[in-house]
C-alpha cells in the first residue's frame, strides 16, 4: 500500500509520518529543498488553546512532531499580548531535526520535485506527474500543498512577491492538485469580502537590532515597543491571516518574539519607518526578504473535504493543513495532517474512515471549521486553537485546559490513548 504525500510543510510531514506509523510505504514530494514550508518562518506553538491541542495529540500517540518542536524550543511559557504560555521553537534548527526524524522512520522524501498534474482513472487518482514528466503511482494521495502564493496571487491580492520562504521564483509555483483532479477550490475572504489574506508576521535579522533589544529577546523571548503615534495603522489588521494576532495591541505596539530571528508580529513594515524606532536604526528583514513592502497571500486554494479529511469528489485524495481549510498554524497543520495520513491508510486497505471525537479540541476544530466555512461570515474567519472564534469556542465548551493530567484522563476515557501509534497494516 503506497501513500503519496504532496507538499512537505508541517501538514505533509505529519501525514507522511502517520501513514508510515500505520505501516504504509510512504513517499513525500516537496518542491523546495526544505521541509516544513511556512514552519520555517513561524515558531509559535502551545500558545492559548494550542497547548491543549498539542497535549491531546501527545496523548493520542501522535506527539512525535510536538516533541521535536519542544526539544527545539528557545523559550517556554512566554506571555505576549493576548497570548499565554507560548513555546517558541528555533526556526534555524528545527527543519534539520524533522528531516532526520522522517528519514529515520523510513520515509522516502523527494526534494526539488514539483507535482504538476494528475492521471485519473474515473474518480480516483492513479498517479501524479512531476514537472519533468516523471510519473509517480500510488494507492492513496494526500495533498498538503498549503495555500500560499504563488506570485500571481501575491500580486493580484497583495503587494507582489515578497520573496518568502517558499521561493516560487526558484522552485516554481504551488498549483492546486485537487483542482487538477477536477474539484473546484474554495477561497477565504477578508472582512471586506476580497479574496485571500496576507501573512501576518515577518522576521528581522536579530543581529541588526540594538544590543539592548537583543539581550531582552534572548532573556525573555519577547519585547514590546510602542509604535510611533503617527505610524499606527489599524487597517493593516484586517488584511491579516492571523486573526489571533489582529488585536489593537499589535497595531499600537511592535511585538517581537525570539524564534532564532526576531519575529515581528505585523504583515510588513516600511523599512524607513521601522528604522526610526529606537534600537531599530540598522534593522533588516530576513523573511520575507521584501518585508518592507509585502508579505505572502494565503487561503486561495482550499479543497472541499469531509471530516475524515477526504476530498469530496475524489475517491482517494486526502488533504491537511491550509489546503484543507481556513486553519492557521503549525499545530493545526499537524493535527489535520495526522488525521489525513491515518485515514489515507485505512482507505488504502479497505477500512472505514474515522473522525476525531468532538469532545477533544482536535476533533472539534475539524468539524467546526467545515461547518462554518459554508457561510459567508465563516469564510471570513480563520480557525486556530490560539485565538479568534475558535479559542473562544474552546473556552465556552470547556475544551481549553493546560492541565496535562486532565487531558490524558479524557483521552483514556475515550479509550483513545496512543490511538495513532497502532500499526494497522
Amino acid at each position, binding site marked *: 500500500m503506497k501513500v503519496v504525500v504532496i507538499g512537505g510543510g508541517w501538514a505533509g510531514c505529519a501525514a507522511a509520518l502517520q501513514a508510515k506509523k500505520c505501516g504504509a510505504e510512504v513517499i513525500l514530494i516537496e518542491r523546495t529543498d526544505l521541509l516544513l514550508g511556512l514552519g520555517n518562518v513561524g515558531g509559535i506553538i502551545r500558545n492559548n488553546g494550542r497547548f491543549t491541542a498539542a497535549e491531546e495529540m501527545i496523548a493520542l500517540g501522535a506527539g512525535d512532531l510536538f516533541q521535536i518542536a519542544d526539544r527545539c524550543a528557545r523559550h517556554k511559557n512566554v506571555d505576549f499580548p493576548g497570548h499565554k504560555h507560548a513555546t517558541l521553537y528555533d526556526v534555524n534548527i528545527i527543519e534539520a531535526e524533522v528531516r532526520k526524524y522522517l528519514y529515520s522512520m523510513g520515509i522516502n522524501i523527494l526534494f526539488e520535485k514539483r507535482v504538476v*498534474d494528475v492521471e485519473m482513472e474515473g474518480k480516483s487518482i492513479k498517479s501524479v*506527474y512531476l514537472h519533468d514528466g516523471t510519473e509517480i503511482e500510488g494507492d492513496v494521495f494526500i495533498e498538503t500543498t498549503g495555500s500560499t*502564493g*504563488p506570485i*500571481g*496571487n501575491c500580486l493580484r491580492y497583495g503587494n507582489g512577491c515578497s520573496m518568502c520562504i517558499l521561493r*516560487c*521564483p526558484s522552485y*516554481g509555483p504551488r498549483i492546486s492538485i485537487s483542482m487538477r483532479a477536477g474539484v473546484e477550490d474554495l477561497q477565504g475572504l477578508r472582512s471586506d469580502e476580497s479574496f485571500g489574506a496576507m501573512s501576518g508576521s515577518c522576521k528581522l535579522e536579530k543581529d541588526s537590532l540594538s544590543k539592548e533589544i537583543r539581550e531582552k529577546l534572548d532573556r525573555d523571548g519577547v519585547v514590546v515597543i510602542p509604535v510611533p503615534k503617527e505610524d499606527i495603522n489599524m487597517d493593516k489588521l484586517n488584511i491579516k491571516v492571523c486573526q489571533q494576532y489582529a488585536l489593537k495591541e499589535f497595531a499600537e505596539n511592535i511585538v517581537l518574539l525570539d524564534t532564532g530571528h526576531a519575529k515581528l508580529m505585523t504583515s510588513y513594515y516600511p523599512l524607513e519607518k521601522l528604522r526610526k524606532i529606537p534600537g531599530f536604526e540598522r534593522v533588516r528583514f530576513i523573511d520575507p526578504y521584501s518585508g518592507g513592502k509585502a508579505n505572502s497571500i494565503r487561503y486561495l486554494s482550499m479543497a472541499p473535504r469531509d471530516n475524515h479529511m477526504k476530498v469530496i469528489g475524489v475517491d482517494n485524495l486526502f488533504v491537511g493543513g491550509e489546503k484543507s481549510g481556513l486553519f492557521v498554524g503549525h499545530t493545526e497543520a499537524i493535527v489535520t495532517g495526522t488525521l489525513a495520513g491515518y485515514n489515507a491508510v485505512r482507505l488504502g486497505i479497505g477500512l472505514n474512515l474515522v473522525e476525531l471525537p468532538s469532545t477533544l479540541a482536535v476533533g472539534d476544530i475539524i468539524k467546526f471549521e467545515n461547518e462554518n466555512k459554508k457561510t459567508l461570515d465563516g469564510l471570513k474567519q480563520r480557525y486556530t486553537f490560539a485565538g479568534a472564534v475558535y479559542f473562544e469556542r474552546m473556552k465556552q465548551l470547556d475544551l481549553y485546559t493546560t492541565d496535562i493530567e486532565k487531558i490524558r484522563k479524557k483521552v483514556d476515557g475515550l479509550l483513545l490513548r496512543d490511538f495513532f501509534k497502532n500499526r494497522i497494516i
Partner: protein
Amino acid sequence: MFRYVDCIDAGTEYCPCHLAEKGECIICSQLRGKNFCDCLNWKGTCIYEEFIWNNKKAKRIREFKEFTIENKRLIRDDLLLLQVSVNPYLAKQLNNIGSYVFLKKPGSPLCFATPVSIMDSDIKNNLITMVVKILGVKTKDLLECKDKVELKGPYWNGIQGQIFLKNLKGNEILIVARGVAAAPCVMAAKKLIKANNKIIVVLEKGRGNGNFAKERFKSLGCEVYDVNMINYNDYSLSEEFKNLLLELIKKNNFKVTISGGSDEFHRLYLNFVYALDKSLKFATVNNAIITCGEGICGSCEVKLDRGIIKSCKQQYNPAEVFINLRGEGRK
C-alpha cells in the same frame, strides 16, 4: 499521458506577448480570464507579474530588418543554401535547438514572409546558415534576392518535444532525417554533442548524392547511416530502414529520437520505434504552416485531444500527436 503545455516564448524577452494582452496566454490562468493562479508551466518567471510591471502591455513584437546575404547557391535544383550575416544578438539567440526566422525579399509584402530553420549559427562571425526548399510563391520570391534579405526573429519552435532534449548529458540519441528537414537536425546535433551526447544519424539516401547535411553531421562527429527509408508504392517504411532501426536500437541505449521529415513520416517512424521501445521519448521537426509565428493568425493550429493549440509558439509531446495509442487510454 503527461500533459505537456509549453510556450516557447514564455519567460523570454518576448513574453508577455499579445496573447497575454488579449487574455489568451498559453501558460498563465490570470492572463486567461481567471482570477487565481494555475500556472501550466513554470519557466522561471511569473508572466502575470511581468505583464503588470510592463504596464499591462505586451512586449514589443519582432520586426523585419535587412541583413546581408554572404552566400547563396543552389545545392540541388530545388535546394537553396543561404548564409546571412546578422547581428551578434540574433546569432546568439538563433544558436539554439529549434530556432528559425522569417525571411522575405526586401520590399516584398509581409505575406511573403517564409519561416526557415537555422541549420547553423556561427557566433564568432555572426553568420547563420539555412537551407530553403524552393516550393512555391514565397520561396521563389526568396530565390530572387540579390545581396540583401529581410529577416525577422528569433523564433524557437522549429522542433517539438524540446523538453526531452533539455538537460540531456552523456546519452545516446538517434536522429532520423529526410530532405530539407535535416537542416534543423544539424543544429540539434551540434547542441547535443556540446552536452556530451553521442549522436547517431540515419539519413535518406534519396536522389543524387545523398542528403546535403551528411558531411555536416560527420564533421560534428556523428555516426551516419544512409538508407532508403520509404516504399513509395504504399508509403510504408522500407525493410532496409526497419532492419537498421532494429539493429541500432538493440545496440544502443537511446533515450530520445529526433524525427526530421513530414508529418506523415513522423507518424510512420514514431509508431514503429515506439512499438520497439515504449520508454523512448520523441522530438519532431515542426511542419505546421507557420504564417505569423506569434500565435495570432492560427494557420499553425494542431488539434490535440485536449483542444487546439498554435504550434508556432506552443510545444506538444510528439507522442500525443503522432502515436496511435491503442487501448492505452489516451485522455
